């Protein structure tokens, strides 16, 4: 079930990237994809009836879900936010340069420059 949610979200993100002319929307769609993939990966490690993978006074003995996908997702989240920051800065520059973040208007502005 959760697989389908994740992949529908990825599909929406992909649709957004291809269909939207606004570059900012493309970035938003990209972030949706990242979130969806993270959900999918965590779901791959889920085990029915298991606990969160932390030894504590509540769970002194091991009956845990798979911790490795969670560790991978931690890395993936940080990587995606790094990419996002660079992308946001690039967008600011594009807006500075062409006065717009719309792909077609940028193309028009480029032709004027050339």
């Amino acid at each position: 079930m959760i697989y389908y949610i994740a992949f529908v979200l990825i599909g929406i993100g992909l649709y957004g990237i291809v269909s939207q002319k606004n570059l900012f929307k493309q970035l938003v769609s990209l972030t949706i994809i990242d979130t969806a993939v993270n959900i999918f990966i965590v779901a791959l490690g889920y085990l029915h009836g298991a606990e969160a993978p932390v030894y504590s006074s509540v769970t002194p003995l091991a009956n845990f879900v798979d911790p490795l996908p969670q560790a991978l997702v931690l890395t993936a989240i940080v990587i995606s936010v790094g990419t996002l920051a660079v992308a946001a800065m690039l967008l600011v520059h594009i807006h500075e340069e062409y006065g717009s973040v719309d792909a077609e208007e940028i193309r028009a502005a480029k032709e004027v420059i050339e």
Partner: protein
Amino acid sequence: MIALLVAVPLAFGFATVALPKLSRYILPLVTLFNLVLLIGFIHPVQVLEIGKWPAAYGIVLVLDSVNYPFLIFVNLVLFALSISAMFEDKLGVLLLVLTAALNGLLLTGDFFNSFVFLEIIAVVAYVLASQNKNYYAAFKYLIFGSVSGVLYLIGVVSLYVYAGTLNMAYIGFIASPEYVQVAGIMILIALLVELKILPLGLWAPDVYSNGSTVTPVALGSAVTVAIFYLFSRIFFNVLEPVKPLPVYILSLISVLFAQLAAMRQKTLGRALAYASIAGASTVMAALSSGALGVEKIASAAYLYLLNEAISMFILFTIYGYLNHKGFKNDSVAGIAFSLASISLIGFPLTAGFWAKINLLAALFEAGDYILPAVLLAATVIEAGYLIKWNVDLWYIDNDSQDEEREKTYLPFGAQVVVLLFALTLVIIGFMPDLITMHTDKIASHIFDFKTYFDTILKGGM
């Protein structure tokens, strides 16, 4: 010991962030240190289990006869780049990070680790691509690159689900082939985007033609070579090859389309960018040709890749400095440029000649006649536009702008590097055995999964 190849550039990168002026001088020193370490002190075969965790659990770094030549070449390119290129101070820190990431990507024996290094390279590449106010192209690259990164991640994680580990050798041993195919498709698409095979590499022409002396060289000569290594490692060595036919056809179309597009370009930068795409596609076509697993084809393909990388280094560096100003004032650059173009076309007595002849011979032997035909047609087109550009640049008339003349020299460091690389091409042209010796070795080991697996199994030092 081999961890130093990653740790040292990284440590210096972190340390110089507050004083970026230093990084300009540290970068050549660090890459030189890496080269000395590689040539003098560490030799294949070495396995390092990081943190002392056994191979299936932790991350292993492997140095064997396959990645050793690649490591030397990539560090050499970065060393040359640090001398020849012109960049702002802060980019020096970024290039140190790139050095560490490329070394890590070449050494790693772990799928997720390779994803992390690919992403470091990608983030660095986005920033590099935005040099010279090329922001829109960089953003396009970012979108393409991030989507491919997501696909790579899904592929890697599904390999973990199938095999229960992330170690490349163990996955190749455990995971069942029909499942691996599905994950392989995703990883393959991700790598094809980075290797700029055409429908997936539409970002490349704009990024490569930004006229900087860093971007096309770092991306085209260092990163592409490293990713070709990763491709060979994953699909020849570790996993079963994913049905190669679609990739083969895609690459063939990409070669022809890129060459035709290169012919029609009005600026040299874009023409070179398309030529670079065509080169990468040719190597890809050769590696994925129907006769998969033939060592001779792989060996010739690696020679082709080397020739491509060195020639493109020269051409892009000179284009970055001189733009369209011609060689009247700087005949050293002109000679290097012409030698590189000749080698790229494949005239006799250059490295390109042997690359193409070896490739053709190996393909004929294996009974593949489509790629040779495409290759010959591509060579004719390539010869056409490269000779045209050479003639244009040699006989261009810019006497009228006296003020500009002073500026159209290459800096001394760049001249030396470019000339040395051009000489290398000629020397390989006279003595191809120098290189074919190594490429044969790579090719004979890359299809040998058993040796690789045994190396990992035996573990650390």
